[in-house]
């Protein structure tokens, strides 16, 4: 089974999609030279500069153009260099892409994919580090996915491109150069969570790069006899709520972890939805572990304090299980 980096998995998915379907096109800045992270390297040579199209720095119009192209029969994949700059395209994304199918009473389809790199890594500061998925899941008509492994990146990108709705594909740059197995022909449907670790004592739902941190925390907790089930939702909208609820019915405890600011984040949405269905089995309040209510600071120490750590995750689990740290050394 081939093993590859997350960025390579993305490139492979794009390449295969473009090969099988001539209506798939890529739009974004510096794509013909691979972009800042090399994701699209080599694709322009293979598919030409109309299908791999460099755009000026005009996010609003580029997203709008992609919507119009989708309406006219293409399947565009737009690359937004940093999700922070998706803010420049919010009108076209929210008012147009998300709503045209509905407003037209089903006549129009917008088979658009927007790939946006995100995350607080490397001390890039407040304009290059945000996690904005909470804004996006709030928009009826959009779909939002955040794969945490190369295999899911490949599978979900294919699914996104094949979906006739606008899909935002969020890529954490801290995951870009991680490696993982990517089975040939892997399929990952939108809306299906993945169980990363089995356990009966607590359910941890983690998003994006923090899936790895949650697993690390789970390993540490296991040493103290706490077995966590770690769920990677993979899709944020639609969310696989049944999978989470089923898990909580068994464990009775839930901790939700994300790098986005805790206030107004996905954690609140998941917590509210789960308690509405499963409050009778909850043995402890649902706890969210998110970033503090601040812009992402640049200083490495502060950035580190901003992103939820393995320790914070483990501490949250200990709170809900009522088992404080046992000092063994």
């Amino acid at each position: 089974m081939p093993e590859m980096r997350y960025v390579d998995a993305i490139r492979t998915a794009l390449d295969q999609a473009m090969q099988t379907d001539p209506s798939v096109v890529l739009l974004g800045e510096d794509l013909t030279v691979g972009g800042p992270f090399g994701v699209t390297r080599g694709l322009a040579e293979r598919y030409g500069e109309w299908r791999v199209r460099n755009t000026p720095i005009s996010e609003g119009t580029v997203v709008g153009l992609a919507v119009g192209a989708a309406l006219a029969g293409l399947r565009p994949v737009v690359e937004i260099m940093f999700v922070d700059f998706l803010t420049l395209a919010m009108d076209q994304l929210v008012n147009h892409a998300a709503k045209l199918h509905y407003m037209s009473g089903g006549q129009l389809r917008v088979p658009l994919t927007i790939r946006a790199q995100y995350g607080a890594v490397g001390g890039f500061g407040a304009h290059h580090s945000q996690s904005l998925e909470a804004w996006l899941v709030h928009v009826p008509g959009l779909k939002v996915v955040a794969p945490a492994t190369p295999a899911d990146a490949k599978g979900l990108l294919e699914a996104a491109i094949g979906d006739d709705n606008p899909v935002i594909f969020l890529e954490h740059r801290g995951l870009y150069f991680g490696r993982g197995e990517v089975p040939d022909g892997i399929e990952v449907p939108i809306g299906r969570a993945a169980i990363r670790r089995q356990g009966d004592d607590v359910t941890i739902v983690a998003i994006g790069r923090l899936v790895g941190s949650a697993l690390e925390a789970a390993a540490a907790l296991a040493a103290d006899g706490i077995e966590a089930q770690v769920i990677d939702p993979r899709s944020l909208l639609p969310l696989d709520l049944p999978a989470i609820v089923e898990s909580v019915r068994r464990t009775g405890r839930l901790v939700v972890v994300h790098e986005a600011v805790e206030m107004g984040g996905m954690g609140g949405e998941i917590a509210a939805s789960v308690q509405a269905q499963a409050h009778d089995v909850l043995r402890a309040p649902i706890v969210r572990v998110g970033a503090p209510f601040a812009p992402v600071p640049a200083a490495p120490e502060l950035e580190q304090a901003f992103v939820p750590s393995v320790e914070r995750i483990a501490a949250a689990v200990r709170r809900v299980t009522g088992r404080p740290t046992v000092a063994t050394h």
Partner: protein
Amino acid sequence: MLPDLPAERLVAQLQTMLRIRRFEEELIRLADDHAVGHFHVYIGQEVTGVPALALLEDGDVAYTTHRNHGHLIARGADPARLMAEILGKATGTNRGKGGTLHLASAEHGFPTTSASVGGPLPIAVGSAFAFKELGRDRVSVCLFGDGALEEGAWHEAVNIAAYRSLPVIFLCENNSLEALGQKANEYPSSTLAVRRLTDLVRPFSVPAVAIDGSDAAAVHGQMKKAVRRARRGGGPSFIETWTVRWPGSRPIWPALVTGETDVAYAWDEGRMPDEHRDWFGTQDGLLRFLRELLEAGHVDRAWVQAIDGEARSEMASAVRYALDSPYPVPEEALEDVFA
């Protein structure tokens, strides 16, 4: 050509240019071993920013974008505190919260750096709007690159500045004469469908000029006109400066591709590395400025070596200060979210 200024002012500008050069060289070396985030250096463009910003007074403001270190130093910000900020230390200008991309020093008339291309344009126009409403004869300058002109924000900003006749100066440092990812496509830049960037300003009747950014006299002269126009209520101006991008700024992360600048290159061509003869010989505006000062007799070699030595030592101290400074404590992360 040298600006029409007294010798001691020209010499002071040379000093500032050298200080910026040495700051950026130290930073590139520092970045090898320390996390500084993604940064951009002003090497090669000092001869634009220094004479231009020297014309601003107290109470004037300037906004800039990611290539900002030189701009802040030019207006008097403390390099030690800038370096500390770039390293994310608590003693930095932004207390470690901003980093290189958001350096700010309100006391030096630099309220903020924005890292989204085109981001500072509306804000600079806003300050100009306030100055006009409050009846102050202050000026707002927006410093940006050619890329910013692709953003819709540029169009909206210049429209408002023009029809309200606001005291704002748009200073566009075009260093993309042959840049990364672009190819010649009938237009000078393949991302803007205009023959000259100044064409974009024409419909708004905003006075616009394009000049050689390494010609200090041209920079000084045009900026002086623009500042005077703004202060007298004559509205906005647009100045495009052409500059050849320093080879070390071509890769995604800056690198000392040409090696350190030796001030002696200004008078001893033999010392120049062959493969960078074009850069040091004709393209580096700082050396051009220096050569002109030497020729005019305003400085001599010994003196130049001396002030260069001071600049190097100042910037070496800045690095030490930055390295020795503490990081902010995590509890500080939430301070300053709100006023």
